[in-house]
């Protein structure tokens, strides 16, 4: 971004309580560089960091929303959102009461939980095979 451009987000550091918002954004920037440079992926557990009320929302707002928003229905809802910074994903897991149980920022090309899982594909192959065999008989 050009220095004279209007910033896409504006963190008022003077109003922050823990001063952890900007360091986390810097950590994300380092992780994104690492992903491009060496292909290494990173995960940040937002629930492991002391954040004052409202600061988690500040981080989420700063990252914004990009082109992909996937919803997973598995033991409650999960939202997998690519932020406006490509390669930076926000993953929020909810329980069946719609309460957030964990929240991660993944810096990766595609979060692993979105991919079809090997065990499920094995089960699917067996079920489809069995279904076809049943229909043949």
């Amino acid at each position, binding site marked *: 971004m050009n220095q004279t451009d209007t910033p896409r987000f504006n963190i008022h550091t003077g109003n922050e309580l823990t001063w952890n918002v900007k360091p986390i954004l810097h950590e994300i920037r380092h992780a994104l560089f690492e992903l491009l440079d060496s292909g290494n992926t990173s995960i940040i557990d937002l629930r492991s960091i002391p954040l004052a009320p409202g600061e988690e929302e500040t981080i989420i707002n700063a990252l914004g929303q990009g082109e992909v928003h996937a919803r*997973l229905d598995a033991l*409650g809802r999960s939202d997998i959102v690519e932020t406006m910074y490509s390669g930076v994903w926000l993953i929020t897991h909810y329980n069946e009461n719609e309460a957030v149980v964990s929240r991660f920022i993944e810096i990766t090309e595609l979060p*692993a939980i979105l991919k079809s899982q090997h065990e499920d594909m094995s089960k699917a192959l067996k079920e489809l095979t069995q279904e076809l065999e049943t229909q043949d008989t």
Partner: protein
Amino acid sequence: MKKDLSLNDGTPIEGTPEPGTLGETLRSQGVSRRSFMKFCATTASMMALPPSMIPMIAHALENARRPSVIWLSFQECTGCTESLTRAHSPTLESLIFESISLDYHHTLQAASGHAAEAAREAAMEENFGNYLLVVDGSIPLDNPGYSTIAGISNLDMLTESAKGAAAIIAVGTCATYGGIPHANPNPTGAVSVKDIIKDKPIINVPGCPPIPVVITGVLAHYLTFGAIPDLDHIGRPKVFYGQSIHDRCYRRPFYDKGQFAETFDDEGAKKGWCLYKLGCKGPTTYNACATTKWNNGTSFPIESGHPCIGCSEPDFWDGGGFYKALSMPTEDISKTAVYTVAGAAAAGAVIGALNRGKKNNSDKIHIKTTIDDLRK
């Protein structure tokens, strides 16, 4: 299935997980791999483990065998069980419970009387040397009649049940350090599990009550690694109790800048400043409240505007008052004078000596009260 499937290179398509494992239990309930990965991600977060360990946790948990668990409740208020069973989502954490075989629990089991005790004895015999023993509540050493179950004293039930246990998890401050029953004047002669059992690994999970996900996190750790977690000098898992509330508190910057609430309704309190002067025990209390939080991660006491009372520390009930700042002396002025006469050079040294003395000698001030004393 009529026949086994395999890939072109002969590799068999993976079948169902090993019988008796958590993986098999989950698969039989229709839990998908994605759901399981979500569960493992949340488990890693609750165990304060780095997210990079999620695949390892998934592999270990999937192949974990269901351990038998015997849960004993002694001098307690049932708050620990309430914490665990009431404050949880019905699905994610219940997977942890489905991964254990809870063979005995006074509050939760349907059986009662002789049938209940028979279930405990059968579980102990079948799983001797391998079962987990969970204890909440303190044990009275004075008159055994203060607390009995099916006519068995708490002391006898604990020592008998501990013999075949692979490990013991003491849940709550009563089981870990004596808790409120142990508070001065300790009328029942209450002691902790560790005061009685000396030959078994004991994991202390203090708190009044402990954070529910910390309890399940310890169980998950045992299932994942097959061993007890690293413990601190008073037996607490370091992953949950390794840092003080103060160090992880979002109000810490106000402490560093000297900005304190002086009363519960002054400007400092309204601005969310540090509660140290209102008696916050965060600097001397080690627990996960500041990051794990309560009520599905909603908040924790300091976030609600109340000082930490230090409930996961030994003798927190006798710490000199919940609303007394840690820097204030915890003994009366006459004892302070004795310290001064004894040659302490500065007021700070006097206060420090008193506070250290209070902590180090806390056991000594618990004078046991007899029935005769109570009648006076």
